[in-house]
């Protein structure tokens, strides 16, 4: 017997729209958090490997995380309905709430990213310093800079786990909600981390003027794209093996209203095309590396928008 089921939903008008409560600032924040995590991870890793002189764009790229994290945090606070109460996040630590530990990780990582940038400021941006003359105006900066430079190794040791947690957290934040079938899968954490690392590598490529460096980060980015595609396939297979609500959630991405955005912009233009261009480049043909790098960044941004938007359309009841 074929069952017919029809549920009218709530009998009161104008209720359901108020349930879609996460808007573009959250997607933007998740993207910026991942980007910052990616750059910080590579910067700290290559510093610890003693290769920071070989790859100058890494130091230049250190400008991005403090800006990205600050803008991301502002976006996050902007999306709160009680922004003046944000401090309440820091009067407690709730181990079960991903949002709580995300808030604490950000509280540590954001100032650390500023300090990291500052420790490279004079050597990487001598032109800025000659214009701003900060060190002449504020005498204590010299001492502070010396202190930071001697402690760079410790900062790098701290930044590696922090950036990984930050990157994973952007995904775990969503996957912790079992009421939203599209988000509720464990792959989202590693997937967002990989995507964040990939956009971070792409940003470094964009800033690099050194052929060898661009080559290396193209290779890294290519590897990350392959992992990301594998994780996305894994995610889709997971939905297909899931319950009815997950199958319905999957329909949004495969054959639903987000199909063009997901397969056209994220998978094709954001992952496959840049991967092919990077392979062509690595084979020795001339490809402007800025193109795949920019595509990866735009793809990463769109991916967050799609996941946040589509996830909120999925639910358990009717």
């Amino acid at each position, binding site marked *: 017997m074929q069952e017919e089921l029809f549920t009218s939903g*709530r009998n009161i008008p104008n209720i359901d729209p108020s349930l879609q409560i996460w808007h573009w600032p959250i997607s933007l924040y998740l993207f910026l958090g991942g980007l910052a995590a990616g750059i910080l991870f590579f910067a700290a890793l290559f510093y610890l490997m003693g290769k920071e002189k070989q790859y100058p764009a890494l130091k230049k790229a250190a400008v991005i995380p403090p800006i990205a994290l600050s803008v991301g945090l502002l976006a996050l606070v902007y999306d709160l309905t009680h922004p003046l109460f944000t401090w309440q996040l820091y009067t407690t630590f*709730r181990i079960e709430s991903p949002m709580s530990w995300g808030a604490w990780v950000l509280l540590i990582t954001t100032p650390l990213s500023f300090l990291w940038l500052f420790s490279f400021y004079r050597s990487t941006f001598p032109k800025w310093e000659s214009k701003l003359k900060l060190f002449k105006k504020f005498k204590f900066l010299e001492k502070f800079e010396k202190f930071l430079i001697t402690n760079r190794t410790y900062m790098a040791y701290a930044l590696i786990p922090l950036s990984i947690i930050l990157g994973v957290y952007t995904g775990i934040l969503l996957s912790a909600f079992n009421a939203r079938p599209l988000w509720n899968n464990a792959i989202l954490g590693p997937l967002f981390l990989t995507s964040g690392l990939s956009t971070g590598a792409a940003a470094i490529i964009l800033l690099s003027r050194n052929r060898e460096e661009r080559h290396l980060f193209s290779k890294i980015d290519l590897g990350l794209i392959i992992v990301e595609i594998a994780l996305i396939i894994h995610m889709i297979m997971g939905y297909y093996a899931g319950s009815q609500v997950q199958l319905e959630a999957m329909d949004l991405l495969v054959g639903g209203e987000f199909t063009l955005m997901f397969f056209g912009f994220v998978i094709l233009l954001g992952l496959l095309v840049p991967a092919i261009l990077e392979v062509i480049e690595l084979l020795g043909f001339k490809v402007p590396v800025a193109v795949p790098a920019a595509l990866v960044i735009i793809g990463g941004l769109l991916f967050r928008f799609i996941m946040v938007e589509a996830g909120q359309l999925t639910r358990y009841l009717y």
Partner: protein
Amino acid sequence: MRYAMVIDTLKCVGCSDCVVACQTENNVPHGYCRDWVTEAVSGSYPNLELELRSERCNHCANPPCVRCCPTGASHVIEGGIVLVTADQCIGCGACIESCPYDARYQHPDGYVDKCTFCHHRLEKGQLPACVSVCPTKCMYFGDLDDPNSEISQLLKNRKYKTLSPEAGTDPHVFYLI
């Protein structure tokens, strides 16, 4: 002590009196509600069945909203009632996203709000507003831990269900079917 609500779907006529009573009692802002009536038609023509359900926060024993709240504003008090402290809520919306029953809404004043089982009325020994006004008396309220309470007896003698049990939240609103 575990407060629970039992709703007889065979007696509910879908008048939405419970909704209006709640909005009046709890000063719910215009356009929002803490409880609502769902109509669900199932079966295959011509054998169709209509079920009317008055739905609200399920005051789950395993509440995902409390787990994911970053500030501790969502919490469980004695009797298993899930409450939101408005002064601690930053309006991040994590609890709204985590609720499989979509029982929460963002109050225009910035905090998240939802059914409290009329906690303020229970303290005075009164029933929740929705239960007390129901014209068909299809709603029952009481202590699940007391085997002699009306609701325990109903759940013992009648067939019942909970909503989305697969979400694993152990809800405390039961529907007699």
